[in-house]
């Protein structure tokens, strides 16, 4: 055994108490979006856990071979959610990937991406106008929507344009509500900071309208999830800590509000398990906060065929609340029957663009067959992916975060 491999094996052994919980029942096959497409054991959690075990019990020596399949995972978390033995599968994958990556090294483009975009927020803010202009150069406008541009990276994709000024640059700071009831922090995350700026505005204005004052960070600092999925666990931990340190400086905020479930998952659920950092503040998705804490009601109802894709990292105990809430302002609303993943998975869609599309396509087929006009999804990643899939197949559906609809309805009422 080479020294390098021995190092990997020794470190992977740290995960033994987690992997041992897996009794290899195989139930994950029934919920894994990749297994359901491939019917191939290395695609599914049980297979990947067995590979990690095969490495540290010495049944095989090919660590990069294992890494290849650890990478081939959307990290949608269905395996963990439906695991009869409650195995901490996401934690096993992220940590195992981190260990193998640390010793094998990252591919260059991922290294550059991580170090410049995620680790250094100043870098991004400074260069954002240039990136925005550069993005316009390498992309071309799409026919259907002026916000969306076509790029070839690595396959043809329809992407929402990167704005020249970030949400934080415009909205960073404290937004006091008129009849203040309570104070919260709004953590926008990268997608809302650089691309979906309107969503951020909607969150702040809607909260203000209902008497909630909002703190917005002046600089966006990534939640760290892309670092975790690429295997840079140390950078991930660092980002979780930086963000929590900032949250702690705001004493009078009761909640941390997010509009991206993956950021929420990365900062809190997974963050707690991997970085060991917990917050004394409560955290909540914006839609659930409106429904459960502010109990908002709608006087108007839309009359369009609307549906919902629930993001993988949504706090699923609130799924039915979200469905009720959207039903409250849409008279013709039903969530999608297909409850699988949209296939995005952040860096997964860059690494495996075709698989990513294949996972999402059945969803769009349902949207088309049932002739929905609006497809809500409270997650920038899902919206990005579903928009791209819809445009690819020429499906005429509006994909957006429901907070944007709520904002529109309130504006019609004159806020």
């Amino acid at each position: 055994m080479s020294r390098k491999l021995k190092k990997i094996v020794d470190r992977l052994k740290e995960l033994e108490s987690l992997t041992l919980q897996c009794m290899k029942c195989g139930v994950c096959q029934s919920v894994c979006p990749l297994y359901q497409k491939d019917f191939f054991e290395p695609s599914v959690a049980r297979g990947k856990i067995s590979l990690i075990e095969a490495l540290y019990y010495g049944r095989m020596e090919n660590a990069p071979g294992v890494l290849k399949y650890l990478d081939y995972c959307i990290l949608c978390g269905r395996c963990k959610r439906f695991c009869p033995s409650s195995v901490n599968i996401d934690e096993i994958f992220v940590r195992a990937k981190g260990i193998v990556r640390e010793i094998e090294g990252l591919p260059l483009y991922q290294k550059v991406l991580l170090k410049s975009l995620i680790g250094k927020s100043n870098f991004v803010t400074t260069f954002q106008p240039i990136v925005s202009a550069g993005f316009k150069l390498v992309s071309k406008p799409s026919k259907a929507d002026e916000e969306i541009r076509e790029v070839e990276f690595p396959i043809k994709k329809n992407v929402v344009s990167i704005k020249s000024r970030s949400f934080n640059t415009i909205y960073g700071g404290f937004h006091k509500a008129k009849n203040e009831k309570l104070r919260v922090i709004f953590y926008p995350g990268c997608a809302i900071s650089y691309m979906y700026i309107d969503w951020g505005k909607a969150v702040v204005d809607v909260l203000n309208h209902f008497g909630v004052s909002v703190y917005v960070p002046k600089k966006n600092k990534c939640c760290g999830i892309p670092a975790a999925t690429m295997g840079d666990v140390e950078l991930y931990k660092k980002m979780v800590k930086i963000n929590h340190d900032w949250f702690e400086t705001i004493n009078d905020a009761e909640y941390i509000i997010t509009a991206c479930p993956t950021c929420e998952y990365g900062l809190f659920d997974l963050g707690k398990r991997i970085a060991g950092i917990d917050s004394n503040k409560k955290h909540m998705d914006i839609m659930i906060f409106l429904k459960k804490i502010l109990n908002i009601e709608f006087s108007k109802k839309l009359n369009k065929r609307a549906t919902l894709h629930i993001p993988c990292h949504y706090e699923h105990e609130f799924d039915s609340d979200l469905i009720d809430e959207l039903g409250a302002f849409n008279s013709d609303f039903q969530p999608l029957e297909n409850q699988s993943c949209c296939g995005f998975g952040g860096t997964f869609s860059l690494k495996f663009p075709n698989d990513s599309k294949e996972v999402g396509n059945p969803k769009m087929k349902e949207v088309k067959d049932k002739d929905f006009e609006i497809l809500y999804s409270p997650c920038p990643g899902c919206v990005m992916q579903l928009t791209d899939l819809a445009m690819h197949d020429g499906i005429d559906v509006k994909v957006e975060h429901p907070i944007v609809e709520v904002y529109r309805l309130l504006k019609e009422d004159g806020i």
Partner: protein
Amino acid sequence: MSKRRLKKLFSKIVGEDNCWIEEEILASYSYDSYPEEPVLPDIVVRPTHTEQIGEIISLCNKMEIPLTVRGAGTNLSGGTVPLKGGCVLVTTALNRIIEINKDDMFARVEPGVVTQKLANAVEKIGLLYPPDPASMKVSTIGGNVAENSGGLRALKYGVTDRYVMEVKFYDVDGNLVKGGGIPVKLVTGFNLKGLMISSEGLLGVISEVMLRLIPPPQARKTLLIFFDDVIDASSVVSEIILNRILPATLEIMDNFTIKTVEKFHKIGLPNKDALLLIEVDGHPAALEDEYEKIEKICKKYGGEVHIAKSQTERDKLWQARRDALSSLAMLKPTLILEDATVPRSKVPDMMRIIQDVAKKYNLLIGTFGHAGDGNLHPTILTDKRDKEEMERVYQAIDEIFYRTLELGGTLSGEHGIGIAKKKYLEKEIGTGTLKFYQKLKRGLDPKGILNPGKVI
């Protein structure tokens, strides 16, 4: 033979994209759900058309390459572990439901069809495929037939074999063989479909199965009953059946399992010595009568009866049983699930024996299972890294099996023999029967390439 050459040979049959010799793929097909030591095959082959099975099997036979067939790999007796290396044939791409026939009430499927998917498709046209093994969300029909899988409804509806009408399979020479057919009465020739049921991959490779479907029951009623004494609960089981009532489900859980479910899931179970979950189904009028009788019997033994009035309540009552295995799994790193089965009248004795064995070997054993058909699941919670404890585990398993046989029971109610129960087989079936198995095997598979090292 070198792996490269193997790949070349099999590529000619299934194409390069459907066979693998990479270490990480081989390691992914080296285990199943039984905690055995995994063994890597030399090649993994995934046919996309059933005809390719014949070519694969005859190539293996010609070159003397061991052949282990695998569906979802949920086997609980080590049957899909490629003990002697060689070729693992994965059936997951053979997953077409070929036909569902409403008039003659049958379904024709390829071996890789997932049980749940078939059950759903059948339900859509208003019929029922009754076998419901606990792994049905992922298990495949080919595996269900080869292992003769059971399930929760077996007491009334029987296990997989009751529903197999026809099996097509390839013998070692690559000939397509057919056993059974559509007619309800069919006595033409040997009962070859019977031969394939429970054959555990030793006699041929299944390429197509025709399954009987039935009209679903009109109504059902669910009861959950708590008892102060597990022996009372087991006595209730016998008495219900003595009263000529055949519930679809009659499940038991002991105190240790109840406590463990409550510990992890907090669903409000009382700390009682045992519970029974009973479901009767059929015509609504008959149901009412059966329900009243069951309630009376339960009360006679001091049972605390809860009934479900709605689907939500039914789900609630089922929750404890559904959570049983996973809760036990969370207690310790290694879980060994056994399926020793005794005649129904011996269930109280068996419950006592398991309690004694747990005490004698100082082990954690939770028991739940299908009390109605005598199929209990003593579940041993341990840690395979603890050598000393594992020694006691093996002794305990030995004792459970030997005492099961003394009670006139069987080694396996639904999990099969595989590697796990091979050493006890002769004791149950006798030397003459084992020799007959061996002669049958030698005749059908003279080179011994089909799933070597298992069962016999």
